[in-house]
């Protein structure tokens, strides 16, 4: 399950650190292990302008958040959501889903993690923070 790509992202995470300005922030925790992530999201003209994050956790949760920033930054909200759906589908597929590299890029490296149910939550921690932050930005826009 520890693909080189995962270890690379773990050792050299992309986009790490909390940055200003941001529209919404989400704090997510995995209650079974205590891993946590704080993620900030800046949306400009319907596009993900910046995703910044800080957290503590295993290689899987850290690397997957790093991959997340690559996959969603600069994309429209719809594109980001559709990528997220593809990643969640891959992670919940117990190893039976064939990932599309055009959509998930480095995210395909997590296909092996899907075979370890206990680690799926780790891989999704940052993505859940992204989803939550996105919901908060739309709430604020509506408000």
């Amino acid at each position: 399950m520890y693909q080189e790509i995962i270890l690379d992202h773990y050792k050299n995470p992309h986009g790490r650190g909390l940055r200003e300005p941001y529209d919404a922030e989400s704090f997510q925790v995995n209650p079974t292990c205590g891993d946590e992530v704080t993620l900030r999201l800046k949306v400009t003209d319907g596009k993900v302008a910046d995703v910044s994050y800080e957290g503590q956790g295993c290689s899987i949760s850290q690397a997957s958040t790093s991959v997340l920033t690559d996959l969603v930054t600069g994309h429209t909200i719809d594109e980001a959501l559709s990528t997220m759906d593809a990643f969640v589908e891959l992670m919940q597929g117990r190893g039976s889903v064939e990932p599309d590299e055009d959509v998930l890029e480095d995210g395909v490296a997590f296909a092996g993690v899907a075979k370890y149910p206990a680690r799926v939550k780790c891989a999704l921690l940052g993505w859940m923070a992204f989803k939550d932050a996105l919901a908060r930005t739309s709430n604020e826009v509506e408000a």
Partner: protein
Amino acid sequence: MTTTTANTTPLDVAAVRADFPILSRTVRDGKPLVYLDSGATSQRPVQVLDAERRFLETCNAAVHRGAHQLAEEATDAYEGARAKIADFVGATPGELVFTKNATEGINLVAYAMSNAATADDGAERFVVGPGDEIVVTEMEHHANLVPWQQLCQRTGATLRWFPVTAEGRLDLSGIDELITERTKVVAFAHQSNVLGTVNPVDALVRKAREVGALVLLDACQSVPHFPVNFRELDVDFAVFSGHKMLAPSGIGVLYGRRELLEAMPPFLTGGSMIELVRMEGSTFAPPPQKFEAGVPMTSQAVGLGAAVDYLNAIGMDRVAAHEHQLVERALNGLKEIPGVRIIGPPDTVDRGATVAFVVDGVHPHDAGQVLDSLGIAVRVGHHCAWPLHRSCGIPATVRATFYLYNELSEVDALVNGVREAQRFFGVA
């Protein structure tokens, strides 16, 4: 009754292992299973599995109701198990309440205490309210923390706690300020499920007695591993779980001194626990039935009785001596690895066979994953003791727990596995 005269001879691990079919299976592409997670749940010997099956095949019936032969035999098996288990921990059968698990036992006491305010005469000593204090420790399992937080929230009482020293022992320096005339309950773990620390029951009981507080002992990690006698420890209440001592899940024990169980109001009410029921109101059966509402778990209780027989036949002294060897080997082996830090006492004094540690540069999840790939089952995370981890400034640990069926070679496998994890993540 099996006698335990041969307690001085070392435990025959190979013979013990032969009783546990699961230990001979392989995992992760043919690796022999190295099971070092008995602190979470233990494996069961054929003697326990057979006892459960025999009960179900020969005399299964609802206990304490019905007058047919099966009901009689089932009740005898259930109460026979209770007597054996009570004897195992220095109690009488009337002092031993069957629960679902230890967590339920602690909740039973906490909820009985909130029920005390509106209960019949005699329950006054269980009433807690504003100005009263409950004292726990920072090393508690959530099961011995959250129920007391909730009791305080329901009643207005205040929760206080003993801190833990850097070495992973209870810091008793503030005992006179923590346990005072305001203290109603002192609840603590006999042995920490993370640190392995065996806490000084005598010092805490003595102080609690001085101020008239009740003492509840979480014995989940002690009763399965060394000889424990609740009467000699002089605690008021104690809990433990069957599944951590070779028995089925779904069966736990609450011990309470007889006079306390008689005075304490019930938690769950309904069938089985009554004396007389009228539409206007009811009276309750004497303990332990007063605390066992509904048809109880029966084959599980019989299984726990069989587990006690199994442990008695080996002798708890020998189990403890064997585990002492294992933990000594583990501490020595892990201490030799640069970058590994043991979370808990570094020596084997007043310490059980639980070893938690962190590896610099390798997150516990990742260390656990590498160990798993080698067939070694450990626990990773905060082990239901989140505040303890927070007080140590770490999010999680790797935890290896040993039991009577573990071999020294399995300890070596763990130590080698940790080195392998370091190599894999490039930190060694």
